[in-house]
């Protein structure tokens, strides 16, 4: 695994804005980015060493210290947890006699946890050296442990380990309308750029990534930026599907690739961009090669490149960027920072990306699903979308259904579909709660299942996680608070500290060691995060806690002991090191159960 740094840098044109991509390649070649490599990279790229080190330190999948030759990361979404992920993880830790996050002494293997890998319909899941393995069972864990022990090269591991299933369970407008490559682009060219934007606006299409901003409005603002004059404009496809419980973009890219790329090209034509960028999360390595092949195929077919579809002067190509493990990069301005090779810190706004985005140029950032729908609108017109859905939510929504259902998978419905209908179709029984839109979304109780998926009622970025009555909702919420603490970028005080404090308090509460003060503080901390955080992550990080406190209060109360304040730490355990040093085990060397 000799590192040829100059070859890697050359492959990326020596461009410092490709830093994250360069570092990913270094990781692939060496397993870590050693301090001397950081120094060398900084000087080659002409940036400060601290900047490179800061980027390495920011992303979960970049390391400055060696990890195991086999780097195992278990997906830690609640759906993985509920389907036995923690037990399987423990089984593997035991097999190698490791603690979570530890590297084996011989450097062979490290086992850690990572945020949701987007395989919730086929969990528990893991990544081994970045490659995804789904449907984990004790048998699979045993087989993987043997392969690692035998130091079998990963390209010789059985192919079936890496098979990712597809469960498209219900198709509606988007997933059932065929489109031949080029059709939407032709229609847009025939209609003209301005008219295409008008058509998108008239369709009522709103962003499918969660925020629901008007797509036509966004495109129009980008086209009009800098007085509408010539500028380098960019179209960015946000495929950093990091919201736990969401995997619809995975399926869209796997099976509707042309539709998404067509949508990007239409957007490029409409706003006057020459370049499109796909920001795809690292957790979907199985999509990389097919996607690159598809891009090449479209170039050969004249669907990308110079004079696309013969339209003189419409030059448009698409570049693939891979993330490196940071949920916050799903926020559009953090995503742009990451595309520029920096730490994924959300920017101050205004200015907005539509005027000052990628490389400070006008940039449209759209969700994968939004772009796919845009392609269909370009071909079939605004009314095609308007005919379906509700007044303020035209069209359909693709949901990623997982958790306690008989048939997890992808379900597409017209907006306005009641939650209960989705549950019925997916075969849910004894539903206690549904987390719609992921941890940052809304937690619905059993008495709210009549509510509807729409921007007017329950908006959703796509996640739809179901919990039946056997589940401990506190444990669910605890998982979510852990997620946010892990994913906070750390820029602003309220989110950086608040997410960690929330996670600690929830951990105590779940363990039955929480106090009323913890519950009071939990409510207060979430309120502070909501009121003063820098971006959406901090604003929404308290949502599951707020919802759970309001809707599942008895679950909290059941776990409380009668004391007003309990120790925030385990008293008896706090004496353990001194007991060990003094070899004492007398009564005074312990806090008995009553005391603890």
């Amino acid at each position, binding site marked *: 695994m000799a590192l040829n740094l100059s070859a890697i840098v050359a492959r990326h044109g020596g461009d410092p804005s490709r830093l994250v991509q360069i570092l990913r390649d270094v990781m692939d070649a060496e397993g870590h980015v050693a301090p001397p490599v950081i120094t060398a990279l900084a000087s080659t790229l002409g940036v400060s060493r601290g900047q490179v080190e*800061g980027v390495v330190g920011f992303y979960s999948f970049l390391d400055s210290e060696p990890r195991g030759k086999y780097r195992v990361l278990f997906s830690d979404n609640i759906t993985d947890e509920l389907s036995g992920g923690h037990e399987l993880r423990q089984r593997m830790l035991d097999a190698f006699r490791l603690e979570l996050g530890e590297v084996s002494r011989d450097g062979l293997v490290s086992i850690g946890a990572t945020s949701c890998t987007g395989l919730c319909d086929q969990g528990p899941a893991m990544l081994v050296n970045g490659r995804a393995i789904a449907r984990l069972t004790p048998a699979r864990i045993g087989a993987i442990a043997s392969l690692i022990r035998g130091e079998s090269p990963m390209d010789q591991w059985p192919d079936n380990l890496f098979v990712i299933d597809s469960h498209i369970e219900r198709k509606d407008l988007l997933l059932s309308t065929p489109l031949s490559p080029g059709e939407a682009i032709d229609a847009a060219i025939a209609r003209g750029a301005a008219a295409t934007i008008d058509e998108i606006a008239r369709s009522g299409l709103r962003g499918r990534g969660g925020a629901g901003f008007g797509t036509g409005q966004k495109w129009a603002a980008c086209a009009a930026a800098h007085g509408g004059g010539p500028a380098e404009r960019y179209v960015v496809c946000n495929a950093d599907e990091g919201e736990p419980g969401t995997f619809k973009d995975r399926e869209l890219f796997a099976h509707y690739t042309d539709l998404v790329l067509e949508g990007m090209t239409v957007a490029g034509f409409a706003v006057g961009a020459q370049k499109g960028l796909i920001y795809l999360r690292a957790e979907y390595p199985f999509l990389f090669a097919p996607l690159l092949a598809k891009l090449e195929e479209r170039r050969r077919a004249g669907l990308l490149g110079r004079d696309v579809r013969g339209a003189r002067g419409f030059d448009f190509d698409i570049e693939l960027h891979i993330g490196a493990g940071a949920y916050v990069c799903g926020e559009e301005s953090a995503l742009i920072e990451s595309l520029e090779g920096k730490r994924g810190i959300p920017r101050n706004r205004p200015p907005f990306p539509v005027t000052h985005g990628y490389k400070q140029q006008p940039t449209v950032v759209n969700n994968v699903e939004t772009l796919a729908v845009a392609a269909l609108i370009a071909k079939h017109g605004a009314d095609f979308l308007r005919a379906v859905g509700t007044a303020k939510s035209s069209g359909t929504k693709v949901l990623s259904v997982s958790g306690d259902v008989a048939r997890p998978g992808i379900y597409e419905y017209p907006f306005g579909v009641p939650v209960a209908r989705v549950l019925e179709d997916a075969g849910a029984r004894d539903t206690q709660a549904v987390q719609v839109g992921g941890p940052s979304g809304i937690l619905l109780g059993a008495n709210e299942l009549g509510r509807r998926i729409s921007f007017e009622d329950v908006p959703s970025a796509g996640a739809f996680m179901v919990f039946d009555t056997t589940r401990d909702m506190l444990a669910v919420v605890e998982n979510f608070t852990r997620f946010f603490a892990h994913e906070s970028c750390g820029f*602003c005080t309220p989110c950086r500290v608040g997410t960690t404090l929330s996670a600690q308090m929830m951990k105590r509460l779940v363990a039955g060691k929480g106090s009323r003060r913890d519950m009071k503080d939990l409510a207060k901390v979430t309120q502070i995060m909501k009121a003063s955080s*820098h971006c959406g992550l901090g604003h929404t990080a308290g949502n599951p806690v707020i919802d759970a406190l309001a809707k599942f209060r008895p679950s909290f109360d059941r776990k409380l002991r009668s004391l007003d304040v309990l120790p925030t730490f385990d008293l008896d355990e706090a004496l353990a090191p001194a007991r060990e040093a003094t070899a004492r085990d007398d009564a005074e060397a312990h806090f008995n159960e009553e005391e603890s």
Partner: protein
Amino acid sequence: MTAKTFQMDGHDVPFEEGQSILAAALAAGSYVPYLCYHAEFKPHGSCKVCTVKVNGRTQASCTTPAREGDVVESNVDELNELRKNLVQFLFTEGNHFCPSCEASGGCALQAVGYELGMTTAHYSPLFPDRPVDASHPDVLLDFNRCILCELCVRASSLVDGKNVFSLSGRGITKHLIVNAESGKLADTTLSVEDKAMSVCPVGVILRKRRGFKAPIGERRYDAHSISEVAVAHPEDEAK
């Protein structure tokens, strides 16, 4: 010519086009607590202590441009409580042992704590492990007290042109680093004349052999509270 104004806590505050709410308020003699803001640098709004309500919406006043007619709330219980909580977060996050800190009495974090009536950090302290860096002949770095305001990062990059400081890590593990493969300050180009030496609002970047130079009673915030100092000498405060 009538100056443009916005209203803050019932008073008219004049501002120049492009000026932030915070800068305009301080210039007009109205104190808004802050930690990561510095008049000489473009504000980035990370500490959030300067949060105000603009037309009912909470915003960091350092990054929000003033607009004619805006109604701003600042010195109200709800916001002072929020600010106190954020200062408590910072005390909880780091290792802030004032009695043994050279910056005590001249520390903005401490002074804002006094200003907001904070008597306890309230939450369970995180007690992070942050070794000090005493490698440099003239400068000591005590990361225990870092509040991640990035003022040294900005000063070193924008004024000194050296990029001595950067940030690494993420979330609660975010931390200040120095620009050297060894990770040691001695291996950077920092010198005591640098701007980065004078901007730390707390006690991270310290001149060696200067500790506790000002006697108690004569320190920056001994005789006057930070709210008085900040509006009496805005240019001094921005030194």
